[in-house]
């Protein structure tokens, strides 16, 4: 009896420690984002008064958000990011499915060679300058195509797709072949409907990668009006590019010059943060495949 009670007390302490650690983790994870949100709902004079941990805006205002929507450079950069997404997502998904289908198919004489050629690019690349010179020689430099085409297939994502296709019973596609269907019809009529969850996760992965990319644009794009949102945030927040700041319009620009930056961060980050929780249960598979099979 005594032993039982003792163990229960131990369990209690154990549980408390676990919950305290996890709640601390949640706070530490969320606070930086919360801080940005609070600043985005403040005005520039108030944030100079914020010291230490800020929990709530001094005077709640939507002024900074209004500024974002009136700021020509920011709006142009949002438009560029969306254009890149619209162009690259369909391309990525189509090519990834094709690549995954080929990898999952059996019996081709050249399969090993082709798959080997594709996989090799995971481990070795031409590097920064040869890649840059290639984009220049293809005439893609300083166009949005340089942000759409390079990187539109990830081998890693193709392997995720291949594994999803492999879970479909072969008898399904075989009976389709007997009915006279070719591989393209099999992909559209049988494979695609059955791997919808995987397609959703792949869309998320590709979308997030494009939406968050700044490096590709920083080397392939020269004109400011073609830069995506991340590069503008970088210019404004990390390099204090004044020219970009004063490009804003409106009489009360100075009131929100500082907080405008944070509003831009919120607008560029929140959409993704609202989407990923819905696909959470599918993450496990992809991560496992990635770590085990490269």
């Amino acid at each position, binding site marked *: 009896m005594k032993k039982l009670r003792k163990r229960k007390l131990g*369990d209690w302490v154990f549980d408390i420690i676990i919950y305290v*650690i996890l709640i601390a*983790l949640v706070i530490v994870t969320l606070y*930086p984002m919360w801080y940005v949100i609070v600043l985005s709902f403040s005005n520039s004079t108030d944030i100079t008064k914020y010291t230490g941990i800020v929990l709530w805006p001094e005077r709640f205002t939507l002024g900074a958000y209004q500024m974002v929507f009136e700021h020509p450079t920011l709006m142009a950069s949002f438009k560029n990011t969306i254009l890149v997404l619209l162009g690259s997502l369909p391309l990525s998904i189509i090519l990834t499915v094709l690549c995954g289908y080929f990898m999952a198919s059996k019996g081709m004489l050249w399969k090993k060679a*082709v798959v080997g050629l594709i996989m090799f690019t995971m481990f*070795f690349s031409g590097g*920064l*300058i*040869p890649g840059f010179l290639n984009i220049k020689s293809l005439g893609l430099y300083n166009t949005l195509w340089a942000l759409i085409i390079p990187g539109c297939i990830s081998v890693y994502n193709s392997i995720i797709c291949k594994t999803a296709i492999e879970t479909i019973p072969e008898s399904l596609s075989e009976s389709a072949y007997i009915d006279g269907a070719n591989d393209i019809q099999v992909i559209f009529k049988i494979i695609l409907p059955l791997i919808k969850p995987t397609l959703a996760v792949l869309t998320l992965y590709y979308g997030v990668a494009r939406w968050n990319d700044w490096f590709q644009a920083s080397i392939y794009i020269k004109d400011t009006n073609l830069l995506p949102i991340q590069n503008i945030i970088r210019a404004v927040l*990390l390099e204090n590019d004044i020219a970009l700041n004063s490009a804003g319009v409106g009489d009360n620009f100075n009131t929100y010059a500082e907080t405008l930056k944070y509003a831009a961060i919120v607008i560029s980050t929140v959409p993704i943060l609202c989407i990923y929780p819905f696909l959470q249960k599918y993450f496990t598979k992809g991560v496992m495949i990635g770590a085990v099979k490269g």
Partner: protein
Amino acid sequence: MSNLVSFGKRAGQDFKKNKYKYLIVLPVLAYFLIFHYKPMYGIVIAFQRFRASVGISGSPWIGLENFRRFFNDIYFWRVLRNTFTVSALTIVFSFPMPILLALIINEVQVKWFKKTVQTISYMPHFISMVVVCSIINSFCQTNGILNEMIVFFGGERTNLLSEKEMFYPIYVISDIWQTIGWDSIIYLAALSGIDQEQYEAARVDGAGRLRQIISITLPGLLPTISMLLILRLGSILSVGYEKILLLYQPLTYEVADVISTYVYRKGLVDADFSFSTAVGLFNSVINIVFLLVANKVSKKMGQSGLF
């Protein structure tokens, strides 16, 4: 000769039978050839004194001169040391964190709490590097939150990102923040594969929960941990440029400049194309050798390797 004929015949039959499959992979193959293999051919400029105006065919060949220049470069040891240091620090401090988190999350019995913690812990993975670094930058300013704490404990206000000795702590702590949740997914998946009956048996034998973690859960995770660790060790000399490019300043180059950022500055800022390519190639070759070794070791130890 007959071999060749029969091969030709086989190839013909194969092509007839699988023509749609080859048709399907054609655009994919074209992409890889144009955007991956063509730049690989471009590596030859590492052995040239390349001038963009005359191209690869017109530029003079200089053998290993660029590599010699790099090995004698005053920054050679600096970038090598920094690359190794940044990588080693993340292995020592960041790598174990997701394991700990997975162990802790695994102990939570309340389902909604478990799921909420997981969802929130994945969040940093989806925040862009630019935004993460902007927040770091904002926290490290002289009037930022970190300085408030330093002042509270009697320290002096400084811009932390300009301080050489602060670079590694900032890099590593933010790295933990970014990766702890997402990287725990794989361990949680491995944990779900552990036979639950073992826990029953341990409870009957009177083992406490800590005891169960040490004797059942941790050994169950060991194969995953050792495989990931070996692969991580294999990429010890590959440190990405994104975060460092966004966080370092000339004041911190001494500790923060790694091979990849050096390649970036030499190539795109100084436009020393051939030299930059040579440094990049040196790094790629080392990485691939290390990875092959790591893969071998992983297989020797009975784990599944990469290939």
